[in-house]
């Protein structure tokens, strides 16, 4: 395994974004709360977009040896 990404997954981010938009649209929140949600939402969008922009597809091969151990080999 290589380094673990810290960002939330796209699925998690989208779900969170949907709930932020829903809650803001329900109209009960204070301006302060709305600002916080807005900032959070924009932060999520930005982080996801930068993830997408900088993503480099890794293509690897799964190999199991006779001892039953896995290795994951990069493919050019």
């Amino acid at each position, binding site marked *: 395994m290589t380094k673990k990404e810290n960002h939330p*997954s*796209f*699925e998690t981010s*989208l779900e969170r*974004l*949907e709930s*932020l*938009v829903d809650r*803001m*649209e329900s*109209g009960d929140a204070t*301006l*302060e709360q*709305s*600002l916080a*949600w*807005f*900032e959070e*939402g*924009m932060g999520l*969008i*930005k982080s*996801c*977009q930068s*993830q*997408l*922009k900088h*993503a*480099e*597809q*890794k*293509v*690897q*091969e*799964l190999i*199991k040896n006779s001892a039953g151990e*896995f290795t*994951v080999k990069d*493919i050019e």
Partner: protein
Amino acid sequence: MPELRSQYSVSELNAQIRHLLEGSLSDIWVTGEISNFHHHPSSGHMYFTLKDSRSEMRCAMFRGNNQFLKFKPTNGMEVRVFGSVSVYEQRGQVQLKVARMEPAGMGDLFKAFEAMKKSLHEEGLFDSEHKKNIPKFPKKIGVVTSGSGAALQDILNVLNRRAPHVNILIRSTKVQGDGSAQDISNAIHEFNEHGSVDVIIVGRGGGSMEDLWAFNEELVARTIFESTIPIISAVGHETDFTIADFVGDLRAPTPSAAAELVCISVGDIHGTFIEMGNGLSRVLQGKIDRAWIRIDHLENRTTLQQPQKRIQSQIEKLAQYHKRMVHGMGVTQTHFLDKTDALAKQLVGLGPIQVLDRGYSIAFDPSGEIIRNSTDIEIGEIFTLKTGQGSLDAEKTSDHPEPKNT
């Protein structure tokens, strides 16, 4: 019947050949290997050559005869055809008109396929209740196919173009011949054991039924059924159906199609984000509009200067968020930027006076609170309306409460 003689014109000769051949070589079975296969796209007729190690024969199978074929003839396939020799007199050409075709020696395979399909179907392996959902945003996709096949290249090409953020883990297997079913089954087990992929594409490119046979074997079917990771089956061409297609969680007509189906494209994801951003901006814009009206109200009440400053500072903060956001969003989100630009302009341009000049009025009850509900004050009570140009007092004579939207 013309008699055999030693002197012919060309057309007499061809007529004689036709007469002799068509009379004696009709309704015959011929076995050979298909080559130069061509399925004419507009007429629907099939033209090909049937050959063995020493010789070849041109063949035609017309649309009316070939439309019910249960398999797709391909070059290199051994077939048994039933038909009649026909002679094209003008050119002196001989060809075989094919009425029926079946894979040579593969009748048993068809029977085995149908029997396996029936038995697994009855056992419930194809039932939709067992189908696992394909995740919408897989992070890593497993691929079980030949490491040297065109199918793998197709899958990699599509995923590289559509979803460069998704990683791919390949477990190369044999996809035809001895041991291929066992190898495919092992590969699926290994992915389940390794546990690093969100979905597996299992497949190969097109071929004869014999070539695709591993994907019809019970071992592969049961392994697919038992996999806890969802499996997309992608075997051969659109017209090829295998047991793996029926038992898999999703059937893709081709390996490329599997790569299209396995995840939404990066373009679609961007679109979704832009929509979300627009939604957030739109709602916030509404909030800000209402905040301005409040500020306008507070401005007239000198004792409440502090809250006004607070709101003012919030709005400045908001403008800064926008600046940072606009800066960070990049050039692709022009639509979104338009929205945020408009919002920023509104922040600058919307003074309290302009709001009232646009025709807004604010109603205050005698204690100076904003009236938000028609029942906030009693009938007969005097209230104040602040307009763009001065204010006026009015009396409530009736109310028309609205049911609250939820």
